[in-house]
């Protein structure tokens, strides 16, 4: 896992990278998984990444709209993921100054509570709407998501880094 060393100066991000990453995340979210509780929320993960790395480009508004698309695609109450993703974006932007000073695994420790919070928001909305408690396996998805953070951040920084190396050669 290549750590994000402070001396690396990354190329500016291209909007196409951001759009493509969100598209892939939505695609992964809509895959026919056998049990949804163990599947991390890829969209939340990508959203946290861009809020941390590009807080000026990606923020609450983008998170909210993508949350709405996720709600409609999943056929659940409109607004629950939108609320969760807006909160997620808020805390990710608040953490963005601090989190990048750490190595990937310490960053993952910061991300885990954020993902758990987003899951908790969705759960509270569902409980208010009259659903039954889903049980503790619901915690597994966010934790797997946090464990995937180093891989995801390495992958998503790749376009910026590769452009740099190509320019150096």
């Amino acid at each position, binding site marked *: 896992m290549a750590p994000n060393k402070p001396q690396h100066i990354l190329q500016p991000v291209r909007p196409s990278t951001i759009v493509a990453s969100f598209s892939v995340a939505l695609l992964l979210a809509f895959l026919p998984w056998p049990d949804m509780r163990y599947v991390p929320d890829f969209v939340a993960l990508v959203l946290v990444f861009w809020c941390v790395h590009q807080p000026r480009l990606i923020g609450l508004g983008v998170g909210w709209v993508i949350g709405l698309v996720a709600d409609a695609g999943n056929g659940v109450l409109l607004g629950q993921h939108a609320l969760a993703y807006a909160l997620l974006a808020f805390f990710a932007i608040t953490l963005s100054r601090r989190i990048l000073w750490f190595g990937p695994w310490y960053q993952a420790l910061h991300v885990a509570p954020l993902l758990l919070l987003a899951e908790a928001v969705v759960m509270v909305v569902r409980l208010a709407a009259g*659903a039954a408690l889903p049980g503790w396996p619901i915690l597994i998805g966010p934790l797997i998501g946090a464990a995937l953070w180093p891989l995801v951040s390495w992958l998503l920084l790749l376009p910026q880094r590769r452009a740099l190396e190509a320019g150096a050669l």
Partner: protein
Amino acid sequence: MEHTPPPFFKRGPAPVVRLAFFASLSFALLILDARFRYVDGLRDVLALAAYPFQKAATAPITLAQRTTEFFVSQAQLRSENSALRAELLNAARDAQRYQTASAELAQLRRANDMRTRFDRQTIPAEVLYTGRDPYDYKVVLDKGRQHAVTAGSLVIDADGAIGQITRVHTLVSEVTLITDKAQAIPVQIVRNGLRAVAFGAGASGMIELRFLPANADVLTGDRLVTSGIDGSYPAGVAVATVVRVERDAQQAFARVVCEPVAGVDRSRYVLVLAGEDLRPDYPLAEQARRSAKRRSSAGNRRGAE
């Protein structure tokens, strides 16, 4: 000269303000959706935006399945073929019996001046994917309003009922499975014709008969079919088999647990039983007074209770 920060540092409203804005917007949407269902138009547009992702997500799996289907061995095909032939013979015999029986039934019904039960139009569909939400039990089908799917239709597979269409989008539609806690389905016990309402039991994958008195005539192994008296389901579709009956003297109602006969969480190819309901309107007090005129022009009216 005014002392404003240079545009370099401008970032719009503070994040807390934005959070408050989007959170209140979300709450407004949630309430509108949960209580009044006012936002179905917006949902339709958003679902259309999500459709390419859903379709693309299932494409590789469909492709992989087709590829593996292509490479099945000849021996396997042969054995399958002979098994299917045998099954076809059985089915043909049953179909002949069914034809005579249904003709006879129609004749008897005519003789008794009763309404004929029409066969409904069916729409074959494929399960696109299961809802991401672990809290309720829904699947999304690849047929929508464009294919004349209507909300309220029953969805079946080869063995029996799996759910009801609860929301129709332009290209896809949502099925609430019979195991969902909020899904009720009127049933009848084949053995004695006892009517009951079956509710989903959620995570266990079972369904329950509620509000049956503790001394109700229900036995383990009883088969349940749709009763058809609600007007939105056709009668006689297999639903479940009773697996456990608990009678507790302390409780007013018996606890009856049933297992769905259809592959509720497995079936990939399903049928939507569409078509209109041909029964007369549910008689309201004022309608009942001048019913004769009304009934001839009765439209369909669902959930008339």
